[in-house]
């Protein structure tokens, strides 16, 4: 079993094969952790009921409410009846099938991809699934974490396994040192701009190199989170001391001899020296600028110091047509400086950038500053616990003094399933992950940015980097 030319992803995969697929059949993989939320699970539970099947491993399953939850007045009944029904269905299903649930008002409630790591349930070397494409977030720990559809949710509930086709491996090598004001969000936006929204299709990405090693766990989560935006099946970072330090002491992290045994195993997971990736991509961290999107897919991004590109600059006819369409939807003219783009709303939140470090980084810039008059700013912590932690540190006061709204935890304006939406034509600088047409509200225009760019933009009213503040 001790081959010495395997990648991290291959090692985790191999250690979870229940039945090896033959004659083109997929491998059957065991799933160590199944995260559930209200949107993609009701039909799966219905399927179980119809077939008379139980949940095989409630002890490996956990539910929380995030997509539909309001971020104000959470002590009142949810106003939208369809949102309320969906959340009530999750509560009912959790009770009926014996699944632990963290409901609105609970300290562990929040965005499912913030909750798993915060509880210490997400660990290196495990398989994680969730009926949500941003499950890739958990790969930051060296877990193989895959977003799945509702039929697969039902499959995992019933069998705790998933038939999966083999994948290819891609190394994303990021070496060098990030300059001040440049973050992991900028790395991943630059990667997606480089390889495209379909560039990772069929691959598990492994983020490697000195710039990745230097990142905190939360910054690594931001990168892995957006692997799906490059079309990848998963994104991973090999575990190291930073991973262990983050995990140790969390309520569900192993303790005592289990911890020692786990670390010994986790230390063996790093990609072998002789392993060969199917594809390699290189990015220089030293020269990276803050990155922002100008279009309607996450691959349509440029340096914040750049201009809105001309459709003629694209050689691929599909890219060119997509650019024409995107500029029209975004109401942008090629050649406009990105920094001249005026925004209406700044959203700091989502499973990409709503953790305590994101809030701290933004608050450090906003402290003592005044909000641009034209701006509305929403700060939505990733979980109730993050909100509480921020309040302990006085961050809520900084946001409120600045003129931002301090909200309760959830997915919120990332996709606007709750009332937090943009109006038609409204333009946002958003720390979320998707700038699709209508994603944040019908007719809404989204620029994806880092928390630092979000904060600087809220001060200046136009897309800005923290460095631009010093010039004033």
């Amino acid at each position, binding site marked *: 079993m001790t081959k010495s030319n395997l990648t991290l992803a291959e090692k985790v995969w191999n250690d979870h094969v*229940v039945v090896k697929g033959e004659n*083109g059949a997929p491998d059957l993989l*065991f799933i*160590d*952790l199944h995260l559930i939320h209200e*949107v993609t699970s*009701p*039909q799966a539970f*219905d399927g179980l009921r119809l*077939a008379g*099947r139980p949940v095989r491993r*409630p*002890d*490996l*399953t956990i539910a929380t409410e995030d*997509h*539909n939850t309001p971020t104000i007045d959470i002590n009142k009944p949810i106003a*939208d009846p369809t949102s309320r*029904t*969906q959340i009530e*269905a999750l509560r009912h299903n959790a009770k009926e099938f014996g699944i*632990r649930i963290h409901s609105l008002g609970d300290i562990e409630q929040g965005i499912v991809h913030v909750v798993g790591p915060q*509880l210490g*349930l*997400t*660990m290196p070397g495990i398989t994680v699934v969730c*009926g*949500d*494409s941003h499950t890739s977030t958990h790969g930051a720990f060296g877990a193989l974490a895959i*977003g799945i*559809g*509702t*039929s*697969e949710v*039902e499959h995992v509930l*019933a*069998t705790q396994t998933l038939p999966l*086709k083999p994948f290819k491996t891609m190394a994303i090598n990021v070496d060098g040192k990030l300059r001040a004001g440049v973050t992991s969000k900028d790395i991943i936006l630059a990667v997606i701009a480089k390889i495209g929204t*379909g560039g990772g299709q069929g691959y598990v990405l492994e983020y490697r190199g000195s710039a990745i090693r230097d990142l905190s766990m939360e910054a690594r989560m931001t990168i892995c989170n957006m692997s799906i935006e490059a*079309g990848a099946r998963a994104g991973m970072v090999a575990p190291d001391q930073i991973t262990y330090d983050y995990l140790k002491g969390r*309520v*569900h992290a192993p303790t005592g001899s*289990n911890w020692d*045994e*786990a670390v010994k*195993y986790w230390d063996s997971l790093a990609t072998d020296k002789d392993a060969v990736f199917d594809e390699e991509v290189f990015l220089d961290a030293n020269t990276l600028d803050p990155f922002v999107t100008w279009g309607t*897919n996450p691959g349509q991004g440029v340096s914040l110091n750049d201009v809105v590109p001309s459709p003629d600059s694209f050689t691929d006819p*599909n*890219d060119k*047509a*997509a650019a024409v*369409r995107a500029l029209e939807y975004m109401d942008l003219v090629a050649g406009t400086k990105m920094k001249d783009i005026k925004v209406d709303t700044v959203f700091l939140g989502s499973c990409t950038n709503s953790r305590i470090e994101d809030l701290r980084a933004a608050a450090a810039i906003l402290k003592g500053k005044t909000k641009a008059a034209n701006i509305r700013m929403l700060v939505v912590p990733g979980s109730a616990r993050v909100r509480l932690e921020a309040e302990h540190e006085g961050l809520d006061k900084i946001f409120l003094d600045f003129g931002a709204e301090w909200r309760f935890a959830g997915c919120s304006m990332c*996709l*606007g*399933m709750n009332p937090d939406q943009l109006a038609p034509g409204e333009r946002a600088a958003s720390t979320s992950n998707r700038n*699709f*047409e*209508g*994603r944040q509200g*019908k007719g809404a225009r989204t620029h994806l940015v880092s928390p630092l760019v979000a904060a600087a933009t809220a001060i200046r009213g136009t897309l800005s980097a923290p460095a631009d503040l010093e010039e004033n």
Partner: protein
Amino acid sequence: MEKFTTFSGIAVPLQRSNVDTDQIIPAVYLKRITKTGFEDALFASWRNDPEFILNDPVYKHASVLVAGPDFGTGSSREHAVWALRDYGFKAVLSSKFADIFKGNSGKQGLIAGEITDEDTQKLWDAILANPGVEISIDLVQRTATLGDLSVEFSIDEYTRWRLLEGLDDIGLTLRDESSITDFEARRPNWMPKTLPALGAK
């Protein structure tokens, strides 16, 4: 699941790349807890535009979608497949599908057939030259045929077998239940457990 072998229906050209699942079905329609009845939600935002191709009466009853590359990117919502299926689509042809969308299609008996960019263009040209024309999808031969034009599509061999046989994935997996039980007995102790809940009360 019903067995799928061959099918003929009206083809519609969707000449766009990066058709993400937020476009196929906007998030507002994901609040339903049923698994059917999503036909009204399909391309809901684009269908407000009278110029949108599905609003052309010729394509109203289309059942084969021929789309640009990177179809089904973004959110994992299986609702995207349900909406296509409920509208009446039996197959989508594109040069590139997002992985999760492709997987979801296979579970619901929607054919996601991969064709070359060149063949995509040929099909678009042929359909636009003869709007309302029928296309035949043959899962046995893996061909899409429109008049004299026949193109090959690729689909994962296992998914194809399952669709041809009409087999349910969970039923297939449960044939291996003893292997799952054996595997569970071998799992190390440090692995995460959600129950009992620890920490905050």
